[in-house]
């Protein structure tokens, strides 16, 4: 789960990590009030930043500077309500509902710092680079020597020497190295105590010269482990449902995993691997899948109905393929769910059903007895995909 920059910075503050002064606003008037308060605190320049769950906001015109507090409401009015298109939003862009208004920070150096769960070492990794303010994947491709990775054993935690190594790699002086150790300690505590999967500070800036220079998180991207939200109510409450695809949100709320694609064969499958393989099979048969849908390990009548609703909301769908390999899921219960949902929702497209595994025979009998119009049974995965692709073509 991802959160907004203003939420991320609020969390950083809670964990003692310095961030620029600022507040979120959802109207130009509110933005003006934030700027005026900042000006009273001594700020002379301002930044107005669109709050959406996608990077590259600056490139799309979603981050603008104001040289006076008086300019802020006009700039906020430009950004609020705009549909911001960035390399990460897709061509449709995202509607901007809020802006973060901050005091501008003088920048002497831009660094990069990230904490992440590392699959390779099966632990945590801290990634630091002197090349801040740029896309880290570009840095990794162009100057890999500028990226320093420190693995952390989750059972030992962050050790002082690891902070010192990273401070050296970032070419920080003695004073800033101490600041850095405190900052990294705060980030690590946030990562562990809030079950983050990613904390990315890009850029981490050094503002000012000499002993007075301060380290600040100028931007922050935080992601959290969905599997840990059950024990992180504070984090779960930060979810912004408006940033999610509405169909994916409804699916999540019904306990289904759904990803919209651009084809015309709707799919309902149990298990993520088989669901992916079903999409592969449809493609191999010359068709094009409309979605990925994993009905999960506890698919019952109600979930099957929700799954149907989701699939049918996609107007592109010309046929539906249901592929269930029973194990933990029982095919007879799926078959009951299919017949009930089809009767209730009036499925107007051809339906190809393939049931295998636990209680498959009973499931097929239930479907046969129901005698649904437009329903065809398949024995194998290939048969099922071929039938569904043909049905979607109208043949």
């Amino acid at each position, binding site marked *: 789960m991802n959160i907004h920059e203003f939420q991320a910075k609020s969390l950083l503050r809670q964990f003692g990590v310095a961030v620029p002064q600022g507040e979120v606003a959802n109207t130009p008037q509110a933005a003006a009030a934030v700027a005026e308060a900042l000006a009273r605190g001594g700020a002379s320049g301002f930044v107005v930043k669109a709050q959406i769950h996608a990077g590259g906001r600056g490139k799309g015109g979603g981050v603008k500077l104001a040289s006076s507090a008086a300019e802020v409401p006009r700039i906020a009015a430009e950004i609020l309500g705009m549909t911001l298109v960035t390399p990460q939003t897709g061509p449709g862009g995202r509607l901007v509902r809020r802006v973060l208004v901050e005091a501008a920070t003088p920048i002497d150096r831009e660094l990069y710092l990230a904490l992440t*769960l590392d*699959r*390779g070492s*099966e*632990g*945590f990794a801290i990634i630091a680079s002197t090349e801040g303010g740029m896309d880290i*994947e570009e840095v990794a491709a162009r100057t890999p020597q500028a990226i320093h990775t420190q693995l952390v*054993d*989750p*059972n030992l935690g962050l050790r002082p020497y690891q902070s010192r190594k990273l401070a050296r790699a970032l070419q920080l002086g003695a004073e800033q190295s101490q600041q850095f150790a405190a900052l990294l300690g705060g980030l690590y505590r946030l990562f*562990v105590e809030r*079950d983050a*999967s990613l904390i990315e500070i890009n850029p981490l800036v050094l503002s000012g010269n000499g002993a007075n220079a301060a380290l600040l998180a100028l931007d922050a991207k935080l992601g959290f*482990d*969905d*599997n*840990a939200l*059950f*024990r992180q109510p504070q984090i779960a409450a930060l979810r912004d449902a408006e940033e999610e695809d509405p169909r994916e949100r409804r699916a999540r709320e019904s306990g289904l*995993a759904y*990803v919209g*694609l651009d084809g015309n064969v709707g799919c309902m*499958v*149990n*298990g*993520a*691997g*088989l*669901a*992916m*393989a*079903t*999409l*592969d*099979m449809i*493609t*191999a048969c010359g068709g094009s*899948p409309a979605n*990925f849908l*994993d009905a999960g*390990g506890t698919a019952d009548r109600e979930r099957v109905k929700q799954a149907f609703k989701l699939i049918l909301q996609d107007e592109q769908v010309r046929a539906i393929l249901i592929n269930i*390999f*029973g*194990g*933990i899921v029982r095919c007879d219960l799926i078959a009951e769910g299919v017949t009930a949902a089809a009767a209730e929702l009036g499925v107007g497209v051809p339906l190809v059903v393939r049931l*295998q*595994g*636990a209680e498959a025979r009973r499931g097929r009998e239930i479907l046969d007895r129901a005698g649904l119009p437009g329903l065809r049974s398949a024995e*194998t*995965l*290939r048969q099922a*995909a071929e039938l569904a692709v043909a049905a979607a073509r109208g043949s």
Partner: protein
Amino acid sequence: MAILANAQTRLLVQGLGRMGQLHARLSAEYGGQVVGGVHPGRGGQTLAGLPVFETAAEAAAATGANASVIFVPPPGAADAILEAADAGLALVVCITEGVPAADMARVKRALRGGGTRLVGPNCPGVVTPGQCRIGIMPAQITRPGPVGVVSRSGTLTYEAVDQLSRLGIGQSTCLGIGGDPIIGTSFVEALALFQADPETRAVVMIGEIGGAAEEQAAQFVREHMTKPVAAFIAGAGAPPGKRMGHAGAIIAGGRGRAADKIAALRAAGAAISPTPAEIGATLAAHAGFPSPPS
């Protein structure tokens, strides 16, 4: 022989909720030795026909168990794994879906160097056909034979096993390693076990997008495997940045693509099934099993 589980496996079930009880019964009906359950607060009772204990240590001492299967919900799953290891069980299979990744990172470190092998979490379990069923697989689709099956997926494993059985090709052991980013037993470890098992003559490996486990497996196949390997990688058409159900199945930062995994495995000498419908046939052709009359 097979790997991990056989007729000598004495299984505990940790977490006797509805799922745990159902699959404890199915595993016992399959003919394996299911010897007891662990469910804090229910010690002394009998559930699913099993004597229930408060702790894994008591259960292991009383029953002589050497393996356990975990159905404990996510908040307690990591603790249940550590408890099973502490009780000295050689094999722990965690079925639970939704275990926090940080919990698994800590558990994996804690298990290092110890005598416990973990399979999972978020996996369908282990079946050695005709001998032992651990987890939730529909064991009726398996049949004893010479092919090892290892997979990151659950139901796609069943699909592959079903194809093999329909071709008359039996399995030595079927193993689902789980779809999470951090898991107990990797492809490489599973392949090493199959390579060392005299009853396994060939291996089917089913991977999917995300991570680098298939690439590591390819390197192992190239350097250490003398037995034929057939592979399928799910998710060739998946769009980048979208998580395809499994926590681990995501193409991120240009890594984890199916095409790269397929190329690595092919270069290592594995036969690649072009579609998920031909996994059994690909193995049969590659390993030289006679094709059945069609």
